[in-house]
C-alpha cells in the first residue's frame, strides 16, 4: 500500500467515525446484524465446511500436477481438448485471479489462442472448489449445482463465441518456446491421489450434511443421525493414507498450502460477512438498505431484475468467496433465485479492475465483447433458472 493511500484510509475511517449517526436505531440494528451474521458463519460454516475445503484446495494445489494440465494449452494442442480442459481447469489451477491473468496472457499470446484463453479466463475464478462448496452449503445445493454447471457451459460457449467473432486475427500469434511448471516426481499412483482427495471430499459432504426437514423419513435422516460416526471413520482412513503414502516434506507442503489459502481468504471473508450483514442483514432481519428497494430492483424473475443483477455482478469486485454472504443478504431481502444465479455467473470472473488488466492484454474491442457475452448469457441463464425453480 502506498503511503498516500494509507493516509486516505485513515482519513476515511476518521470521517466515518465522526459523522455516522451511530445512535440512530437503523444504524444500531445494522451494526448488530453485522456481528450476528459473523457469528452465524463462525458457528455454522467454518468448522464443517470451510476448514475441510481449505485442506482440499491445499491438496489440489500441491499434489495435482499443473504441468500435465497446461500441456493442453500449447499452440499445437488439440482444440476440443483445450476447450474442455480450459472449462474445468479452474478447479485445479486457480483460487484467485492473480494466478489466472498471467496464465491467460500466456495462453493467448503463445499458446492455443483466444478461444481457450477466454474459456480459461472465465472458468478460472468461477469454479474453484471453495466457491462451489460454500455456495452449495449456504445458498442451497440447487444454486451450487447451477453455478458449477453454468460456469463450465459458459466457459465453453464464451470461448467458442470469442474464437468465432475474432477468427481473423488469431493468425497473428507469435510462436515460440513455452515453459510449463515441472511435473515433479510421482510418489503415488493416480488411484492413490484420487482416493486421498476423494476421502476429503466425502468428509466435507458428511460433516456439512444438512439437517433433514422435521418428519421426513428414509435415507436422509438415517445419514444425518450417523453423520459424525461416518465423518470420524473417514478421518481415521485419511490419517492412515497420509501416514502411509506421503513423505514428511509432502505433508509439510500440503499444510503450508492450506495455511496459505486460509491466510489469504479468511480475513477477506470475515470482512465480506460483516459488510453484507451491515448493509443487508441476515435473512428475515432488516438492516441498512431497505428490503423493498432490493425486492423492487431484484425481486421476481423479470428481464430487468436479471439484467441488473448480471451487470452489477460484472462491475463489482468480489474478493474470493465474499459473493456468497452478499448474495445471502440479498436473497434474504427479497432477491429472486434467477437474478441470484445471474449475479453468481457474472460476478467472480469479471470486475472493473479485472477488466482493465484484460483490456491491456486483449484490447478494448475484444474485452468489451467478452464482457458483453458474459452479461448477456448470465441474464439468460438467470431467467431460465428462475423460471424452473421459482
Amino acid at each position, binding site marked *: 500500500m502506498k503511503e498516500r493511500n494509507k493516509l486516505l484510509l485513515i482519513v476515511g475511517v476518521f470521517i466515518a467515525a465522526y459523522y455516522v449517526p451511530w445512535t440512530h436505531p437503523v444504524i444500531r440494528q445494522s451494526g448488530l446484524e453485522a456481528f450476528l451474521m459473523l457469528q452465524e458463519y463462525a458457528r455454522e460454516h467454518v468448522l464443517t465446511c470451510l476448514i475441510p475445503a481449505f485442506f482440499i484446495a491445499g491438496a489440489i494445489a500441491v499434489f495435482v500436477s*499443473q*504441468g500435465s494440465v*497446461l500441456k493442453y*494449452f500449447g499452440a499445437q494442442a488439440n482444440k476440443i481438448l483445450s476447450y474442455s480442459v480450459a472449462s474445468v481447469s479452474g478447479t485445479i489451477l486457480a483460487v*484467485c485471479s*492473480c*494466478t489466472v*491473468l*498471467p*496464465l*491467460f*496472457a*500466456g*495462453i*493467448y*499470446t*503463445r*499458446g492455443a489462442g483466444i478461444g481457450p484463453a477466454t474459456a480459461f479466463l472465465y472458468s478460472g475464478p468461477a469454479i474453484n472448489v471453495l466457491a462451489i462448496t460454500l455456495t452449495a452449503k449456504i445458498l442451497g445445493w440447487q444454486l451450487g449445482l447451477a453455478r458449477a454447471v453454468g460456469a463450465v457451459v459458459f466457459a465453453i460457449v464464451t470461448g467458442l463465441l470469442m474464437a468465432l467473432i475474432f477468427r481473423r486475427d488469431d493468425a497473428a500469434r507469435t510462436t*515460440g*518456446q*513455452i*515453459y*510449463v*511448471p*515441472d511435473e515433479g516426481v510421482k510418489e503415488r499412483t493416480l488411484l492413490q491421489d484420487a482416493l486421498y482427495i476423494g476421502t476429503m471430499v466425502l468428509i466435507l459432504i458428511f460433516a456439512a450434511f444438512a439437517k433433514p426437514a422435521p418428519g421426513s423419513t428414509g435415507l436422509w435422516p438415517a445419514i444425518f443421525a450417523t453423520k459424525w460416526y461416518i465423518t470420524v471413520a473417514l478421518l481415521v482412513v485419511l490419517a492412515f493414507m497420509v501416514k502411509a503414502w506421503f513423505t514428511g516434506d509432502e505433508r509439510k507442503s500440503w499444510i503450508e498450502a492450506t495455511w*496459505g489459502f486460509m491466510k*489469504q481468504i479468511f480475513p477477506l471473508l470475515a470482512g465480506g460477512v460483516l459488510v453484507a450483514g451491515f448493509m443487508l442483514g441476515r435473512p428475515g432481519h432488516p438492516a441498512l438498505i431497505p428490503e423493498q428497494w432490493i425486492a423492487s430492483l431484484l425481486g421476481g424473475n423479470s428481464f430487468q431484475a436479471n439484467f441488473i443483477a448480471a451487470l452489477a455482478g460484472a462491475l463489482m469486485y468480489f474478493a474470493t468467496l465474499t459473493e456468497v454472504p452478499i448474495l445471502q443478504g440479498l436473497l434474504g431481502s427479497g432477491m429472486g433465485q434467477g437474478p441470484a444465479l445471474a449475479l453468481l455467473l457474472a460476478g467472480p470472473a469479471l470486475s472493473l479492475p479485472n477488466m482493465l*488488466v484484460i483490456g*491491456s*492484454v486483449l484490447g478494448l474491442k475484444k474485452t468489451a465483447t467478452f464482457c458483453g457475452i458474459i452479461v448477456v448469457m448470465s441474464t439468460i441463464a438467470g431467467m431460465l433458472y428462475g423460471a424452473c425453480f421459482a
Partner: protein
Amino acid sequence: MEIKVLGPGCPKCQQTEKVVKEAVAESGVAANIEKVTDVMKIAGYGVFGTPAVVVDGEVKSVGKIPSKADVVSWLKK
C-alpha cells in the same frame, strides 16, 4: 547478470523475490534483480504459470518458489 522475477504480485511471487535477493547477497555475485509485474511482459517470456525466474534471458523456474540452493546454482554458471 540480469535476473528477472516474473509475477503479478501474489504472495508466492514476493516470496520468490525474497529468496532470489538472499541468494544473490549470499553468493556475492554482482546481479541486477528486476521484478516484472506486467502480464503482457510475463507472457512475452512464454511462461505458463507464475512466479517464474529468468536469469540472463533463460527461464530457470516456473510456477513455484525456487529453493535458495537452486538460485545459487543458477548464479554460478
